[in-house]
């Protein structure tokens, strides 16, 4: 019996063989292991299929996955977790009694407290029945109660458990747009905002959109937050590095960007966008305004999309620098939507709120056509929507308590307390690193990290070679083994070849900092004693 099926639908779904997806580079193939435990099934009866390779094994999974790397939760962290288990089952087995995770920007895991007002509003939205109880007024501040009502009122049916519009709840996007406008002094549009489960999924969406094949490149700062290198690899594109200048406080030099752009083009790469992380991660620099203007002009001329990672916009520790969004800079230069395509990423994970576990964030897209916006909406809709609680939080972060609100004073106290403490820790740790023999550390003007450079003695480099590991990975490993402090080797972020760094967060609570500093110094002295030339 003939079965005819919706022929055109099926043909549409069964793609014709085409070359829009080039295979991953040869490097990926090298990384594929040749020995899989499932390669031969000696105990199984003869299979009817023509191949012995199981359906899903490292030999036949997407090679882009093999290729991509993400050091922030990579090898050193896995080792640290094992050590932690060891410590639990065998206390006293190590010269330290706890693991100090300085590898990841996860403030609340290291004792930072959430902002009370935000949590009050979230709790009320999670359990709106509380708003009908009399006792609630005794437990929650009145402006938190007001805000919860306002938020519930913009949610259809006041349902916090329903899928929302795929860009996020309209009323919350209105609030965020208002917050952006208040920050920048230029209008923002709710329709330009896509709320996502953290900023990272938004970055992925843009990479997916921009990268058609390996011939498409994205300019990325080196050093960079390895989400960029990983997502570019995952989506089959080419990372075009531009080196930040360590000698000038990690300055972004346009001459370097130009050079890399031309170089990539000469190799047949179509460069699609420029990633700029401001304030920087791992480098912590805050761009100067004229630097930003240069970048905007450059991208406009070259037809590049600006992908502005601005998640650390509230983490600035120096008086002589301020955060200016790229949109604000572009608009103040007289550039509108027709002139430049710009994506700004923001998150609830950083700043003074540090709500990493909530997965809240958004991207604001300006300067692209309605057709493209439709495509982005379509991709967003496949996942239906981002988590509602995270959406609410994003609207709170962009619209915190104002002067006159009941919670304003305590909010300011909490916020300032956290930011001033971060600034102090940044300074203390910077000084500590600079005091070490052969270590130079640029100031952390913003963000949450220090990225000291290790001028390692020749013997150490040789030892690393012998151990088949990068020198900074060797240093990080030794540091972990001796002190329990977990940092990420600079090779995880990219660096000028032949230079070595580590990234260390400034997040352990202040009372732990002196112990960290002294253990670090002790370790370093011993390390240098062992490897000094």
């Amino acid at each position, binding site marked *: 019996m003939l079965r005819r099926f919706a022929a055109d639908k099926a043909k549409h779904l069964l793609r014709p063989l085409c070359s*829009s997806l080039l295979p991953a580079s040869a490097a990926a193939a090298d990384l594929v292991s040749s020995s899989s435990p499932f390669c031969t099934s000696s105990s199984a009866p003869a299979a009817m299929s023509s191949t012995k390779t*199981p359906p899903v094994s490292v030999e036949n999974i997407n090679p882009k996955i093999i290729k991509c790397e993400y050091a922030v939760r990579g090898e050193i962290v896995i080792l640290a977790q094992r050590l932690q288990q060891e410590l639990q089952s065998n206390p006293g087995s190590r010269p330290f009694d706890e693991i100090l995770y300085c590898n990841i920007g996860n403030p609340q895991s290291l004792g930072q407290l959430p902002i009370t007002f935000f949590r009050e509003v979230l709790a009320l939205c999670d359990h709106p029945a509380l708003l009908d109880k009399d006792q609630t007024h005794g437990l929650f501040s009145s402006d938190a109660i007001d805000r919860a009502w306002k938020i519930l009122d913009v949610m259809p049916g006041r349902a916090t458990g329903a899928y929302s519009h795929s860009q996020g709840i309209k009323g919350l996007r209105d609030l965020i747009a208002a917050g952006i406008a208040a920050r920048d002094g230029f209008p923002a549009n709710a329709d330009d905002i896509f709320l996502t489960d953290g900023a990272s999924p938004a970055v992925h969406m843009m990479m997916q959109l921009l990268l058609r094949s390996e011939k498409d490149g994205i300019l990325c700062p080196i050093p960079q937050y390895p989400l960029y290198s990983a997502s570019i690899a995952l989506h089959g594109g080419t990372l075009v590095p531009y080196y930040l200048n360590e000698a000038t406080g990690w300055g972004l030099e346009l001459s370097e960007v130009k050079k890399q752009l031309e170089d990539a083009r000469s190799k047949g790469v179509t460069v699609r966008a420029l990633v700029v992380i401001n304030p920087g991660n791992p480098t912590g620099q805050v761009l100067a305004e004229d630097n930003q203007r240069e970048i905007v002009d450059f991208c406009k001329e070259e037809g590049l999309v600006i992908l502005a990672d601005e998640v650390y916009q509230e983490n600035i520790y120096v008086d002589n620098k301020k955060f200016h969004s790229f949109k604000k800079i572009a608009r103040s230069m007289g550039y509108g939507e027709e002139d430049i395509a710009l994506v700004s990423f923001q998150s609830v994970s950083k700043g003074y709120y540090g709500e990493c576990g909530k997965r809240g964030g958004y991207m604001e897209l300006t300067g692209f056509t309605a057709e493209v916006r439709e495509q982005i909406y379509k991709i967003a809709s496949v996942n239906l929507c981002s988590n509602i609680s995270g959406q609410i939080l994003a609207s709170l972060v962009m619209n915190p308590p104002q002067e006159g609100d009941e919670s304003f004073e305590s909010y300011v106290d909490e916020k300032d307390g956290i930011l001033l403490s971060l600034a102090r820790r940044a300074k203390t740790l910077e000084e500590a690193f600079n005091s070490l023999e052969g270590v130079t550390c640029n100031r952390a003007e913003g963000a949450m990290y220090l990225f000291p450079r290790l001028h390692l003695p020749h013997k150490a480099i040789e030892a690393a070679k012998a151990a088949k590991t990068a020198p900074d990975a060797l240093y990080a490993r030794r540091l972990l083994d001796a002190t329990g402090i977990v940092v990420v080797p600079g090779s995880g972020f990219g660096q000028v070849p032949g230079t070595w760094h580590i990234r260390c967060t400034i997040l352990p609570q202040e009372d732990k900092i002196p112990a960290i500093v002294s253990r670090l110094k002790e370790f370093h002295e011993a390390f240098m004693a062992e490897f000094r030339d």
Partner: protein
Amino acid sequence: MSRGLDYEVINENVKRVAYAVRGELYLRASELQKEGKKIIFTNVGNPHALGQKPLTFPRQVVALCQAPFLLDDPHVGMMFPSDAIERARHYLSLTSGGLGAYSDSRGLPGIRKEVAEFIERRDGYPSDPELIYLTDGASKGVMQMLNTIIRNDKDGILVPVPQYPLYSAAISLFGGSLVPYHLEETANWGLDINNLRQSLNEARMNGITVRAMVIINPGNPTGQCLSEANIREILKFCYQQKLVLLADEVYQQNIYQDERPFISSRKILLGMGPPFSKEVQLVSFHTVSKGYWGECGQRGGYFEMTNIPLKTVDEIYKVASISLSPNVPGQIFLGLMVNPPKPGDISYSKFVTESKAILDSLRKRAHIMTNGFNSCRNVVCNFTEGTYLLCLLSHVFIPQIKLPPKAIEAAKKAGKVPDVFYCLKLLEATGISTVPGSGFGQKEGVFHLRTTILPAEEDMPAIMDSFKKFNDEFMEQYDDKKGYSRM
């Protein structure tokens, strides 16, 4: 020179993606809503948006976790039952820093353990928490697995037709090939193994390497439950053909009868013993969005891996780590779902009352809708002597609309696929927003629409009346009594 985000130069895979659930009909419905028209959204399984109330207990627990200062307040016992307070403390103790800290990229170990225990209770076989990954909704897990499997357009994935269009969308996005296998509408949307074999062989003849097979059990949009025998056949098939089975089981708690209960693919696989139990690769998906919880907005879900090589698991972990962690409140919802209040707990009776009310109401609404559709001209709601109702599981419903040739002509003139044409007219006349069957796949010349059974019970009779009025007028307008689209 084209600019970075000019339409002509964006990723073709993105352009190829189609996701009807929030596609043309939904956008038109949203436009009409903005203009002030009352719209009844039946396009997506989104219970809370249609008036279903959240269960009280989980909301109490999560609210306490959000604002731990409440736990320190001496009056907290007046506002929250003691078991909710205890549970909040329990979940907070599983985190390292409360809800605001990134968890392990696989999800909090304590919650993964609770999920493993749930699976063991459900199936009778132990489950390893290390092979359970929590995700921001099951969809993210599905996308991760498909992205892992698909290398290029020569890799094919067997997908049921009709299917939930996440699968077709994800396969397009990752540049793979969708290999459709048809479910038999006349046999209650059952799976015929011969259909499956034929699809597989055809694909292979076209040079496609078929890597995996998707089953949606209970089915979406079709609502059928696969029989144990069917699943066994499928597992044997996957063993012989070296396919990984992706078992979407998100509707496992939407079963309203005993004759055909849900049995997990994993339970059947392990029950088959070696070599199958040790060799067939299986990934099972679940969520907090469906069942009687319906907590879609929390984005909580998990996948469980069986017989996946550890090196592959490492790669999957690596990709999960790039996104850092799934959202923590969603993880807690998942923990509560697999570990609800037990008899003896203070909140138990209220929890049971609320759950039962939701399930009973869903069952009633299914009846109202089935009868309502079957009373309409040229509309058939698939059931055989009550079998369909017995198998009615999910929130979704898929009546077949027999469109007369004149209607198909009119659709063509309007530049629309026939069922899209019908659904747009339905929307404009009644405000009922459905999803045309073409969004899910169907046999040529056979048309459906998908609607959920989620609108409020008290609104149901009026909705069905409104539908009947529209449909019968539509059929009157276009029926020329010569003959119409047939199955």
